């Protein structure tokens, strides 16, 4: 449902939707010939409802009333929009830059039509100091953006007394690739390879959300067996990532043997991925209007993998030191998880029952348990992911019957917009596409769950100790690339 509104109505309309059980899923701005259009997408579960509030703004000094007071994620979307489009959120309590790189020239907005080629660094927007925490014995530890391991770039500023973290500020946004801009002017088919590469470990999740959005915009009916095949690929992606992270969490507490064995299981899964799609990270499986499967996974292999993964998890939690390191570390309370709008296993480990596979289904999976825990610590996130491995294998076994390569007879149509929602392994991914009359893309807005979950990490780490940060960070395992588009 799309509602055209005036700027003055925005806050009341949005408050009404939020009170009615919706969450703000996406905010997308777009420049047009005579100004800007801003779309606020609200989504609600049970039944699946999606409501878009659409605002039109003048070309000169575009501004929107800020929703930051009623929704924390809205405040972040507004800052992103201001940095990329120059649309001012009026009344924003913290109107600081978010996406903007420190060295982007003042007044340059990369998503505007007149942005041109990437300018040279220079004329920075002025200092953006960290909040200084003062007191006896307080000192700062700056970490990154270049790290010792193979980690994406992010700067973390710890204000610490002894080993206890008083305040953590994460500054990301070092990897702006302009990927949303690259979509502009492409045909939907040309956009798919880009969507697959939004975040390297979430090929299927992003490709699927993108294809669902295109199909919604063009009114394409995707055959049922293709949707089942897509759901199968989505679970395969969840499996290999969850297994990898179970091992990585053990490695972060120096329990290397389980890391080695999780690596072995991961390798088996990647080989299954290669058999199914021809690519170890599942590229090329999801296609516009359908799915291409070269083979189907063998249920016996999957059963062996399920047993292996369950054994790894049981061994980890049976080890007193590992269990001690996980328990009570980096607690994200249910209230904080809710207020910040967290998604995926981070939300579920803090007691929020959110899963787009059930809430915004694109195919009927039947009843399946959504794993939730209430503790919100590293242990809870570990357990939720362990439970999800079992659920995923169960779902794959259900989907094996009736999943096959198949494609809609035609993907076409033009001039409209569409939304795709998929539960990637990190959480709910939302894509919104806008097509012009010729069928080319004019705007693609991508929201990775990491955009919602990053602010939760510093909140969870308040009062934790510095040496536990890597473990807590790994238990969230958020994407930098998917966050900074």
């Amino acid at each position, binding site marked *: 449902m799309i509602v055209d509104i005036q700027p003055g109505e925005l806050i009341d309309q949005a408050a009404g939707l939020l009170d009615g059980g919706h969450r703000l899923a996406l905010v997308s701005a777009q420049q047009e010939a005579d100004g800007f259009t801003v779309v606020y997408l609200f989504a609600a579960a049970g039944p699946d409802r999606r409501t878009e509030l659409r605002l039109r703004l003048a070309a000169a000094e575009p501004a929107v009333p800020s929703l930051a007071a009623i929704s924390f994620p809205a405040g972040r979307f507004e800052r992103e929009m201001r940095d990329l489009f120059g649309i001012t959120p009026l009344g924003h309590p913290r109107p600081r830059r978010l996406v903007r790189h420190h060295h982007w020239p003042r007044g340059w907005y990369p998503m505007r039509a007149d942005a041109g080629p990437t300018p040279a660094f220079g004329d920075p927007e002025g200092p953006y100091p960290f909040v200084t925490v003062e007191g006896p014995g307080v000192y700062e530890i700056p970490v990154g953006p270049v790290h*010792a*391991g193979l980690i994406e770039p992010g700067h973390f500023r710890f204000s610490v007394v002894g080993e206890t973290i008083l305040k953590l500020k994460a500054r990301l946004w070092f990897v702006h690739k302009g990927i949303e801009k690259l979509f502009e002017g492409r045909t939907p088919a040309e956009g798919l390879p880009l969507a697959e590469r939004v975040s390297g470990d979430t090929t299927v999740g992003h490709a699927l959300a993108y294809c669902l959005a295109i199909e919604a915009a063009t009114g394409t009916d995707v055959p049922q067996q293709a949707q089942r095949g897509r759901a199968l690929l989505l679970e395969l992606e969840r499996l290999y990532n969850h297994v990898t992270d179970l091992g990585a969490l053990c490695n972060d507490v*120096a*329990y290397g*043997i389980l890391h*080695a064995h999780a690596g072995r299981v991961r390798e088996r899964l990647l080989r299954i991925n290669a058999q199914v799609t021809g690519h170890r990270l599942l590229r090329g499986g999801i296609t516009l209007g359908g799915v291409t499967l070269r083979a189907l996974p063998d249920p016996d292999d999957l059963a062996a993998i399920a047993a292996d993964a369950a054994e790894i998890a049981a061994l980890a939690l049976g080890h007193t030191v590992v269990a001690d390191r996980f328990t009570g570390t980096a607690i994200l309370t249910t209230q904080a998880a809710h207020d910040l709008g967290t998604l995926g296993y981070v939300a579920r480990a803090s007691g929020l029952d959110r899963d787009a596979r059930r809430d915004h289904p694109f195919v009927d999976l039947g009843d399946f348990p959504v794993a939730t825990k209430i503790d919100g610590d590293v242990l809870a996130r570990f357990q939720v992911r362990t439970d999800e491995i079992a659920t995923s294998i169960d779902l794959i076994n259900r989907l094996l019957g009736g999943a096959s390569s198949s494609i809609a007879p035609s993907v076409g149509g033009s001039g409209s917009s569409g939304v795709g929602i998929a539960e990637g392994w990190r959480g709910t991914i939302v894509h919104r596409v806008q097509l012009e009359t010729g069928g080319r893309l004019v705007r693609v807005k991508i929201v990775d769950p990491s955009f919602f979950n990053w602010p939760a990490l510093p909140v969870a780490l308040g009062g934790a*100790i510095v040496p536990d940060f890597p473990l807590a960070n790994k238990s969230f395992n958020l994407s930098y690339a998917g966050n900074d588009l």
Partner: protein
Amino acid sequence: MITPVQVAVQITVQIVLVVAGAPLLTGMMRQVRARLEGRAGAGVLQPWRDLRKLARKEPITPQGTGWVFRLAPLVAAATVLVVAAVVPLTGTTSPLAGVGDLFAVVALLALGSVALALGGLDTGTAFGGMGASREMTVLALVEPTILMSIFALSVRVGSTNLGAIVTRTAEDPLDVVSPVSLFAAAALAIVTIAETGRIPMDNPATHLELTMIHEAMVLEYAGPDLALIEWASAARLGVLLGLLASLFAPWGIAGVGAGLAAVALAALILVIKVAVLGALLAAGEVFMAKLRLFRVPELLAGSFLMALLAVSASFFLG
């Protein structure tokens, strides 16, 4: 009668063994771990290859650092070398009687740690300071345990001279299974793990800079300096394991006035003993995870308690 030739031979053998063998010990321990975890491993020679690679690089020091930073690796390596020369690893003959003393050995090793901590502080970075602070915390908790254990071991002999303690144990092997010796051995084993930064205290293999103790302290070192530090930590582990072997299993060690053949045999036996201890340590690490930093003092308090029990036992049973 101790001849200068014998002393020279013994010192040379010990230094050569430690210099050449320490990286091999590290490589062997990594290989044992890798095989037990089902990995292929990089091979026993990998630490030597790493050292060669580092030694060939251009020496670089961060801006703003002074002589403390540049001297620290040398002090760390030199103290280990001196300790390697004087402790009774292959023979009980002590060339420098005053230095072959438990107190002196412990103080020398502590001097190396302190030098590296100062080098870490000299960089002025948060990591150097953080690592140094953690290392000093561990050191402060380890020292009392070492002193207590030494006290327990020296009561029987009436001397803290290492040669004398080892000679006494070699002459009276049943002493090893006495409560005094067992408690002291357990305490010193835990201390060795803490001093050398092994799991569960520290993880020498981690890339996570925020969790490091020893590695955070030396994070700014590169090239030949880093090679020296890497070698010194390997040698420290080798010397401490060798000392444990000599103190609590001195069989095969060459006595006063032994010939060259005896020293050669003792060297071979030492290699085997240290390799066995290293393999045991590596195998143990496979089953261990790293403790939360604030749990490390609890473990070290436990080791102190054992050292205290060793002293009590030496008083009541001795």
